């Protein structure tokens, strides 16, 4: 009895205390915020002569930013001492939200190219408007970054971030066991029909000799829209141009044909029966253990695959399938583009001007080259316009260089960057094939790569992609027929597809003019 009375008393006391606590803490926060902004303005005035220590927040990296060789190089060249902190690898954006909303005094924050996150912060008023700062202190910034990229950064006409534009390239295609082709006396397929024929031969004649007659082709269950093959149906990227308008894959007429082609492969037993539950690792496992002969693979995964494959089958050979041509000669491999990193200055920064000066100093031509690829003769060699890395020093001291780049020289960096791809000759061969040997007209750019943040589009994009994938898997395994397509498109449009298309096309029309 007594206990219960105490408990009620405690409960009500706790409630009152927590209410009072919330109220007062909000007040102190506002006071603090007001105080810090006042501090900030006075701070920058008094410190204009000396260089303060900058505090930066970066993406997770397997090495400590502060002790990696480049930290010293950057400090020597810019004259700024920098304290680097990292976001966690998992749920980085949640943590960033916490830090931004508690106004931690970071001077520079660099995140992945997630325009939506950046735009949210800019709209919330959490970021410093960089437009006047770049005009005043950003000579190198203006020389390095194209107006086109800045245009994509604009939120309500103001620039709040400095982008690292990604090199545009084809990232993956279908990898095929060429020793299997040779064994059966087949040629590398160049059209969709030839590709189907090769798969049939792989299944029937079992060149891998594993006797189980399993399907020769496997894909990742989360990526039921298969690279390269989609190109033969005109849907190489998730938005494609039809009659001067951008059309999303499921609305595109090629999507239905693609699905019926894949469903047919599945029915004939040419596509892995278990593909829907495949993860990236299972896919690689099946390919390197010789159970399947064709998988979609990114060129940066080639070294690991090649190691395992040659250990298991010393005679194994592999190559990328060229862009497969569909009925009317249509073909294509989608390219990625857009932005690798975005760098911005939060309002809580104590030294926004110094932060811009620091970013500007890093984009000085010589300094930028030194950070990006190092010294000639020590980290790289230069011959005939090609930068080749000197291993292993290049990997040891410049392997993580992209972490230190806040803004890039958009003309020179793509050339420098190829030194990175030459780390491994097998990887380089794959990269070269996809990006030099496949004719340019078959390498399809992502039309949305340089779009500014489109709120409707980014709101629905993830859920719509999930929807498309789920539907594609269902059709391929025969659970739904392609006749369900019309109903699906309706559902897709209602779930935000139509709103996205409207917004995307409004933007597209505005840049095409």
């Amino acid at each position: 009895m007594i206990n219960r009375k105490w408990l009620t008393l405690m409960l009500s006391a706790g409630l009152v205390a927590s209410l009072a606590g919330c109220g007062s803490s909000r007040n102190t926060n506002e006071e603090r915020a007001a105080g810090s902004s006042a501090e900030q303005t006075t701070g920058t005035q008094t410190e204009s002569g000396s260089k303060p220590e900058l505090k930066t927040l970066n993406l997770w990296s397997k090495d400590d930013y502060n002790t990696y060789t480049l930290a010293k190089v950057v400090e020597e060249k810019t004259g700024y001492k920098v304290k680097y902190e990292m976001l966690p690898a998992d749920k980085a954006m949640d943590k960033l939200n916490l830090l931004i909303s508690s106004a931690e005094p970071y001077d520079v924050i660099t995140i992945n190219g997630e325009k939506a996150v950046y735009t949210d912060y800019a709209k919330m008023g959490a970021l410093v408007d960089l437009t006047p700062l770049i005009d005043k202190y950003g000579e190198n910034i203006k020389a390095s970054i194209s107006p086109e990229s800045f245009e994509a950064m604009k939120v309500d006409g103001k620039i709040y971030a400095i982008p690292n534009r990604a090199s545009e390239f084809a990232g993956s295609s279908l990898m095929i066991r060429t020793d299997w082709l040779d064994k059966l006396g087949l040629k590398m397929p160049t059209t969709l029909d030839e590709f189907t024929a090769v798969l049939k031969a792989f299944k029937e004649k079992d060149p891998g000799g594993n006797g189980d007659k399993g399907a020769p082709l496997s894909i990742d269950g989360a990526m039921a829209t298969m690279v390269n093959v989609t190109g033969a149906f005109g849907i190489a990227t998730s938005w494609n141009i039809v009659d001067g308008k951008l059309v999303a894959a499921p609305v595109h007429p090629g999507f239905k044909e693609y699905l019926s082609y894949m469903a047919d492969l599945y029915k004939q037993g040419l596509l892995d029966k278990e593909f829907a539950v495949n993860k990236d690792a299972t896919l690689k496992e099946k390919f390197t253990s010789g159970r399947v002969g064709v998988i979609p693979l990114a060129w940066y995964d080639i070294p690991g695959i090649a190691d395992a494959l040659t250990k298991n089958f010393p005679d194994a050979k592999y190559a990328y399938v060229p862009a497969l041509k569909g009925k009317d000669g249509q073909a294509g491999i989608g390219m990625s583009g857009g932005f690798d990193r975005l760098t911005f200055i939060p309002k809580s920064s104590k030294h926004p001007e110094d932060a811009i000066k620091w970013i500007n100093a890093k984009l000085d031509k010589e300094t930028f080259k030194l950070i990006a690829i190092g010294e000639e003769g020590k980290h790289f060699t230069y011959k005939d316009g090609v930068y080749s890395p000197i291993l292993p020093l290049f990997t040891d001291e410049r392997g993580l260089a992209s972490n230190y780049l806040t803004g890039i020289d958009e003309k020179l960096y793509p050339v420098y960057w190829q030194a990175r791809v030459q780390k491994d000759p097998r990887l380089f061969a794959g990269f070269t094939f996809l990006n030099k040997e496949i004719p340019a007209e078959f390498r399809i750019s992502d039309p949305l790569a340089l779009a500014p943040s489109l709120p409707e589009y980014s709101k629905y994009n993830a859920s719509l992609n999930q929807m498309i994938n789920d539907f594609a898997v269902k059709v391929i395994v025969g659970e739904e027929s392609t006749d369900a397509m019309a109903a699906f498109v309706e559902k897709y449009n209602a779930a935000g597809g139509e709103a996205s298309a409207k917004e995307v096309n409004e933007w597209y029309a505005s840049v095409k003019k």
Partner: protein
Amino acid sequence: MTKRTKGDLLLDTGVYLFLIALGLMMLLPLASVFSKSVSEEWAITSGKVGILPVGFQLDTLMQVISSSLFIRAFCISVGVTAIGTLISILMTALTAYPLSKRKLPGISFIMVLFIFTMLFSGGLIPNYLLMRQLHLINNLWVLILPGMISVFNMLVIKSYYESLPEALEESARIDGAKTYTILFRIILPLSMPVIATIALFYAVGYWNDYFGPMIYINETALKTLQLYLQDVVMDANSANLTNKSVDDLMNMSPEGIRAATVVASTVPILLVYPFMQKYFIKGVLIGSVKG
């Protein structure tokens, strides 16, 4: 001794088989991670590594153990665990002692205060704000001070104290011992089984603490081992791959490294168990019966 019937035998066999199966179910994933950490990368990629390692090598483990981030995180975790356990066990034992005396004035009120904290807490955001006001963000004490005394553990020790015969204290008092002498020379030595058990609880808790450091520690130099481990493992999680740039993808750690990191951060705390085993079972039993 009664004779075992066939039914008993059957039941025993069934129980043993079930327990062995259950044990294996828990052991096998661990064994698989362990063998991945000592296998060669090509074997992992092609899915050849199951329970036994393929192409035994220790380079991956050595590479993980010699990484400066790992060493620093490891030292921090060891430090927090050692100091935290020491402080926690001392404070818990000291708190439990007066509360084990039924004659203590206002004891029911004080007990309600303690029990209250078991049931209710301020929630994450108020806690974060509080820690910030206390300047405990990016301070390792934040991992120790707020959770210094676990009320549950305190109750276990308290009930153990209560189970000790009162005559012991009376006789000590007659011999002229004061309260602290009684506590440190008589009560605590007698309570070693439960103290050791609770110490193990605390140690494992501090070692495995992931949530606290994730929320309160931003500075790279102060990251604990569990944070480091989470980073290494989750870096390859598909949800975190979508926005990665190619450079980041090229720099990703292979699966062998991830497995080795798991092993290197789990084994140390596993080594503590055998030393505590004999206290462990006894202590929990006594606490639970009297609790």
